[in-house]
């Protein structure tokens, strides 16, 4: 019984996880270069900078409500950071399971709301000199990435799963700051041929950002990005 179960599991796994024909083999006459466009839904995770609640009890001096609210002097009170991304990508597949992918994405815009009622000191004191009177601004982020993709065909389809790791340059631009950082990119997804010349792509990606403990972290924050993309590419 145990041996039978073992062989059954082996057969199921063999059928479900090993493709009889790889995409590479099916499309071996195509160029290893693909060019594509993509869109997606994701978050730039600005809410990670929004004032949060502390459950710790403070000593009498620091329990002063001015101090408890002090964090609102420098961080947003709310952030709307989820939206749609658009972009383009170029893939070079030199080997059946290994490819390199360059992606540009215009990431979702984030609307940041500072709490101006808490700024009972001159705004310059907190380095937010460029804030409009209502304390609201829109932040844009662009991502340029280059990643290594390792793929594995699945089942009896020509769909393949992949993992990807790479580097990215995230560039944030808004009225408060224009700055970029080098970051890491990690992702997982699926590739599928749509026709002899077109491929589809579904992937989840995570870009590391940058955060700094200063009196004005809003001026330094670079988003940590989580995004789900769909795309279509053409074999050159």
């Amino acid at each position: 019984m145990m041996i039978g179960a073992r062989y059954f599991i082996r057969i199921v796994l063999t059928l479900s996880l090993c493709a009889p024909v790889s995409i590479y083999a099916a499309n071996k006459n195509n160029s290893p270069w693909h060019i594509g466009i993509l869109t997606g839904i994701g978050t730039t995770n600005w809410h990670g900078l929004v004032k949060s609640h502390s459950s710790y009890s403070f000593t009498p001096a620091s329990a002063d409500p001015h101090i408890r609210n002090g964090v609102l002097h420098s961080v947003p009170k709310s952030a709307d950071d989820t939206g749609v991304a658009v972009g383009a990508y170029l893939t070079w597949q030199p080997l059946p399971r290994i490819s390199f992918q360059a992606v540009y994405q215009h990431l979702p815009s984030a609307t940041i709301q500072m709490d101006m009622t808490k700024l009972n000191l001159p705004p310059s004191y907190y380095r937010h000199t460029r804030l409009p009177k209502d304390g609201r601004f829109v932040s844009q982020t662009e991502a340029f990435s280059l990643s290594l993709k390792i793929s594995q065909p699945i089942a009896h389809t020509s769909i393949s799963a992949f993992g990807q790791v790479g580097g990215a340059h995230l560039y944030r631009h808004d009225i408060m700051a224009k700055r970029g950082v080098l970051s890491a990119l990690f992702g997982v997804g699926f590739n599928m041929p749509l026709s002899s010349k077109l491929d589809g792509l579904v992937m989840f990606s995570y870009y590391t950002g940058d955060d700094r403990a200063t009196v004005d972290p809003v001026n330094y924050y670079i988003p940590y990005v989580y995004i789900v993309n769909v795309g279509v590419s053409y074999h050159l």
Partner: protein
Amino acid sequence: MMGTLCAMPAHPFSIGIGGGIGWVNWNALVAQYSDTDPIISDEHLYNPDDGIYVGSPAKAGGNTYALTAHVAWQFSQHMSLQSDYFYLGDTAVQFDMNKMVIHLPIPQTKITAKNIYPELPADGRFTTHNDAMDLTLKFNAPTTLIKHLDVFTDLGLGVVHRHDILAHIYRIGGTFGLGLNYRINPHWSTDCAFMYFTGYDRSVPDPAHYFTPFLDSIYVNLNYHFGPA
């Protein structure tokens, strides 16, 4: 080609141990002066930038050693499930106990790190311990450059554990890796890899109570694959 793709691994289960360099990354919490605008002094009483030192450490984290162990199940020729454990050496956290906030509406109110973190010792220094576990999906592919050398990526969920006088936290996040695997013989292989665990930060007056460091590690593993000779 089909035979290669569809063959089940002869040695699907493996265990491994290893070690390397770990980096306990507290950078997002370590206090920094802002260079956005010229520093504005508050009637020469104190530098407003000093206020950040009340809630955030002056120094924290850094390089240390990392010990790893894992179990893996290779369920197809190029994919496996792997669970890793990382033990990182202790690192130090140092608060500057001399920096303070003098609140303008009540100038006599001076707040130091000791007010925010009563648990801190007089010198503001303590050690923090971290370890982490993960469950990842691993994709590997032959490099073709060197026989028996594969390149792989790891993606999955990890739990980072922080333990010190300010906090005892378990935090779930993403974990990602990249590495090379060399098959020495059917039973033994070795990895050289990089692993990354996401951390966590919170915008509160006492962020050190909540902060979970980002962990990075570069390590070398020796793996034993169970199965027939």
